[in-house]
């Protein structure tokens, strides 16, 4: 009865309707997922979602982790499951009721294969900091841990608002270019959470053009024209060795001239995780040293 009540109450994002005892969910890709009961054994194929699970769920309900998962430390106590290509036998052995993943990490045909084997896959996608917070709440609802999830997101939301207020009246918005790879040059495009994090900090993504890919490849000429104020992607020494030695022409950009080159923590900036505020604070330390 309590479970039925839970179903009726949970009609927000992520949960669509109940049909008898069955729980019917709709994920961020609009896919319908049917569960026989509320999930008790779960795992995630994305390290960001593993962090969300640890932040919200009873850790005993998390049955595995992907090879990339490295936070929190408790994650190392969980068995590793290859997420690409997916180790189907290992997944079957762990018997999860539901697998969480992020758009782009797990191919849809693999999700279909898992569902044939009786293991539903739930996708989330994020374009902004608020999407991450909603994703956490979503997991809370699905796992019956709404209170813990809301407590966490309320606190994170408050911190984001405080930071946003602090920089809302910036006259000059710094243009930040964040590179993810140097040969070829791949960068954080407009369709990434970094763009929203920079907006919160009163700065802007130097890549203003919207590309189809979240992480577009750029040419030296394009970067030269953008002339970013700040470059993220590695320490000055490392980028000097691995980036500017390959592209000496880019030593003309303002970020290089003014030595405003910083190395963000990889598993912070790359992950849409509950540590998103920590990531914003780290960016803040680069933008306003």
């Amino acid at each position, binding site marked *: 009865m309590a479970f039925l009540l839970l179903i009726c109450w949970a009609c927000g994002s992520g949960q669509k309707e109940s049909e008898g005892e069955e729980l019917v969910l709709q994920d961020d890709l609009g896919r319908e997922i049917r569960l026989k009961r509320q999930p008790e054994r779960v795992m995630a194929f994305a390290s960001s979602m593993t962090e969300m699970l640890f932040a919200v769920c009873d850790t005993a309900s998390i049955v595995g982790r992907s090879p990339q998962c490295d936070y929190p430390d408790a994650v190392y106590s969980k068995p590793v499951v290859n997420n690409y290509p997916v180790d189907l036998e290992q997944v079957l052995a762990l018997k999860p009721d539901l697998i969480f993943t992020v758009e782009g990490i797990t191919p849809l045909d693999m999700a279909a294969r898992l569902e044939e084997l009786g293991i539903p896959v739930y996708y989330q996608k994020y374009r902004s900091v608020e999407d991450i917070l909603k994703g956490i709440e979503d997991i809370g609802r699905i796992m019956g841990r709404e209170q813990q999830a809301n407590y966490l997101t309320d606190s994170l939301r408050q911190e984001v608002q405080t930071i946003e207020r602090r920089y809302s009246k910036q006259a000059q918005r710094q243009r930040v270019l964040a590179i993810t790879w140097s040969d070829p040059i*791949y960068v954080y495009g407009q369709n990434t959470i970094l763009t929203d994090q920079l907006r919160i900090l009163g700065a802007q993504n130097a890549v203003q053009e919207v590309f189809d890919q979240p992480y*577009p490849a750029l*040419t030296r000429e394009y970067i030269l024209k953008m002339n970013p104020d700040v470059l993220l992607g590695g320490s000055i020494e490392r980028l000097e060795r691995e980036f500017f030695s390959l592209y000496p022409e880019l030593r003309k950009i303002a970020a290089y001239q003014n030595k405003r080159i910083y190395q963000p923590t990889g598993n912070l900036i790359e992950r849409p995780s509950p540590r998103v505020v920590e990531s914003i604070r780290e960016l803040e330390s680069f933008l306003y040293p």
Partner: protein
Amino acid sequence: MRSAFYFIGAILLIVVALALGLQVGTFEVDLPTIWNAFFHHDPDNTTHYAITNLRLPRLLLALVVGASLAFCGYLMQAMVNNGLADPYLLGTASGASLGAVIVFFGFIEVSIGGFYMPPVFALVGAFVVTLVVVVLGYRKRQLIPAQLLLAGIAISSLVTAIVGLLTFLSDSEGKLKSVIFWSMGSFERASWTLLPYPATALLLALLLFAFLQKQLNILLLGADRAQALGVNVAQTRWAILGTVSVVTGFAVATSGPIGFVGLIIPHVTRGLMGATGKSNLLFCAFVGGLFMLLCDLLSRILYPPAGLPIGIITSFFGVPFFVYLLSQKNYKFSS
């Protein structure tokens, strides 16, 4: 007379392609800006800087690499007397890829002493694999073309399998991107520092074969007849092998293994100039350079700003033309 017309046509088209290429990029420029970038250069003007230090070396690298691959393709087809041969038959492309991949996957530091290592190791890989293939193709103090071809195919397959294994075991999406980008070719790394290496190799090779074009044409008649006509076949073959290894090695090391140019442009050359034209090699280099310039231009126009990988363009536009050429009744591989 006809060949002179084709030469002038190719040179004019190269000039036009260079002028067009200088106008394509992120900075919007017109012809007066290009003129000023060269003749009234303002060092503080970023547009001038982009034209002279990014666009021009890129275009010249495309020209040199296209010319190199076409030239080497012509030499290889003449040496093995087979129109299916290309510069990569000696394993140069797979060797270069292995060298680059070893660096991309972190077995070697990406930068040593300020030098970016992937092209350096690509060159080393190209030379090592070519050497192995040549050793295998050498028997009883003679270079045997059929054996050389088979050795090239076998060793290339093995090296490609090693590259595939390393790629499969890669733990980083970024490294995979580097390898994919590398394997399809690009001129984005072009610079005035990089350009002299492939350009010098090509110029020296062109100079050498200015004296050997006649022997090369006689070689198309077959080794026995060439020998009977006074050509030192063994010496000519060694000259071809050495040249192809070095010129292709530098081209691939700077731009990645770009396909089809070395296969199709020699056929285009013979289609236009005849199978044994006196200036075929030089013309082949010009047409290869022109073709690559046009492919680079298209790649940047079709998919700005990064441009499509150049190997995709060379295949898309080269193969239909190649098929058309082969369907022509009057086309012959040799005289």
